[in-house]
């Protein structure tokens, strides 16, 4: 049974993604910060990692970079609500969405999925990565 780790600071999003994946038969684990996610991966590796990009503390780009460094074969999906965001203060005000998504891609995300996405698009992305 493929295993998926969800990293997102928003509880509602963690919950709904958990439900969606759980219903599709995946084994799911959740983390609310990048560091927590990396800790969980160390104890048990996941087949697919779904991570938010704009998060307090360690942001998604940095998290992806560290995961990629420690687990070169990990499959990563980056999700983001876009908008503007200042990584220093986590005030949602001034960063370029597209640039940020591109940064996630450069850091090593396999799939970039802008929020909001529908169930089909999300499942397609997850299935696509687990199939290979």
């Amino acid at each position, binding site marked *: 049974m493929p295993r998926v780790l969800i990293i997102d600071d*928003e509880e*509602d*999003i963690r*919950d*709904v*993604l958990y*439900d*969606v994946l759980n*219903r599709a038969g995946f084994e799911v684990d959740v983390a609310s910060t990048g560091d927590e996610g990396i800790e969980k991966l160390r104890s048990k590796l996941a087949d697919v990692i779904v991570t938010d990009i*704009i998060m307090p503390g360690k942001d998604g780009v940095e998290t992806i970079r560290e995961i990629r460094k420690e687990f070169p074969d990990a499959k990563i999906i980056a999700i*983001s*609500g*876009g*908008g*503007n*965001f200042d990584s220093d203060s986590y*005030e*949602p*005000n*001034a960063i*370029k*969405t*597209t*640039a940020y998504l*591109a940064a996630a891609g450069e850091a090593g995300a396999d799939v970039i999925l*802008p*929020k*909001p*996405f*529908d*169930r089909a698009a*999300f499942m397609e992305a997850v299935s696509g990565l687990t199939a290979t």
Partner: protein
Amino acid sequence: MAGKLRTLRTRLIVVALAVHAMLLPALFYGVTFIVENSHRDIFVNDVRTHSRFLADILSSQQILDSSEDIIAWLDWLDSVFLGSNGVYAEVQNGEQRFFSTLMDEAYLDKFQEDFRFGDHGDDVYYLSMPLDMPGHQANLRLGFDESLILEEIRQTRMRTIYGLSAYLVISLLLLMLLAVRLTRPLRTLQRDSRAIASGDYDTRLSVTTKVREFRELAKDLDLMRDALVGINERLREEHAEHLATEQQRQTLQKQLHHAQRLETVGTLAGGIAHEFNNILVPIILYTDLALEDLPQESPIRDNLERVTKSANRAKEVIDQILTFSRKTVDQRQKSSDIVSIIKETLTLVRALMPATIDIQTNIDEKCGRVLVDATEVQQLIMNLCSNAFQAMTEKGGRLTIDVCDVAIDGESNDISLRLEPGHYVRISVGDNGKGIDAATQERIFEPFFTTREVGKGTGLGLSVVHGIVISHGGDITVDSTPGRGSTFYVYLPKTTLLSELPVPHG
């Protein structure tokens, strides 16, 4: 009166009168004194000499011994003496008195013992001469008529008065002439200075007088006028410059304020978009899960499908907000053939517009190339045309779309444009609809700002246009007159370098 006394003319005349009042009486008395004295001296010496001569003749004749002799000598006196200006003649010898027989009887009573010239009353000068005759106490007494001499003195005095009067009149006339000559150039200068003071700066200060001081004064004043006019001109120019600078500063400040406001709103909108996108994830996914759980015939299914639909609409709105708030040139710009993109879009516009709208286009095919995102430019044209149509819905109108190239040199162009100098493609979309008032123009590019009724528009159309234009490194302005129509001008920077052209994607 006191004021009148202070004028130069009056002063000169008053001073002259005072000087004359002191001088002329003295002059008069001096002249008459000298004249009287000299006349008297001549007269008195004359009659004394004459009397002495007669007395000497009488003394030498020794004629007092007999009365006959005396009478004979008196006859002689009559003939010699009384023929001249003598009026009285007497010889005293002790108690005896002999009078000239030709003498007027009237003088007998009038004879008095005064022998001074000009004594009043009788106009006669009397004098007494002792006769040198041994054994006798004899005197010759004579009287001479003074009236001729006195008349001469009187006439001389009158002539002096006439002369002095003539002198007074002539000198006063000359003085008045001088006063007029002196005051005329002063009055001219005064009149001209007043003209300058009241703003007629072209008045020259000059006088026609030959008086050197006045000519020099006029010249100096004119130099002063030139200097003042120069200063005034310079001040006026500086003031105008200052006003222009101030106006430009205000325009720039307004612009900056406007830009800052748009940026703030954009930042805020970006933040809101981020939050909403996160919120939409559970809404969309939970609704999907719920739909899966429901039986096909459930009446709740329809409601949930509406939730999905609304969430998707919300997603679209957020996308529009993000388009506005995105300010960087991203990698999605793919095409440089702006003319084709515009023409394709206009085909669509023509199909959508009703027949009441007359569409006129004027597209310069060779206006140049702009690196753009075709979809965004399409959206830009559609939004502008849609707005123009909205402004003309009531009675139809004319929609004009012009495309041309313009050079921005940073100086002669509209200073409200925030563009680097260079070459731009300008897309103008104009209508002859109801127009936009100044207050609306101020906020027209702000998101959610709409003049339409609630539910008839999101208020995002023009802010999306603004976002697209800015992300392409261009600018947008609006020119509108309420009641006459509006024109939007979109400036997009031209691409000149081949390296800037996009590499075709497979």
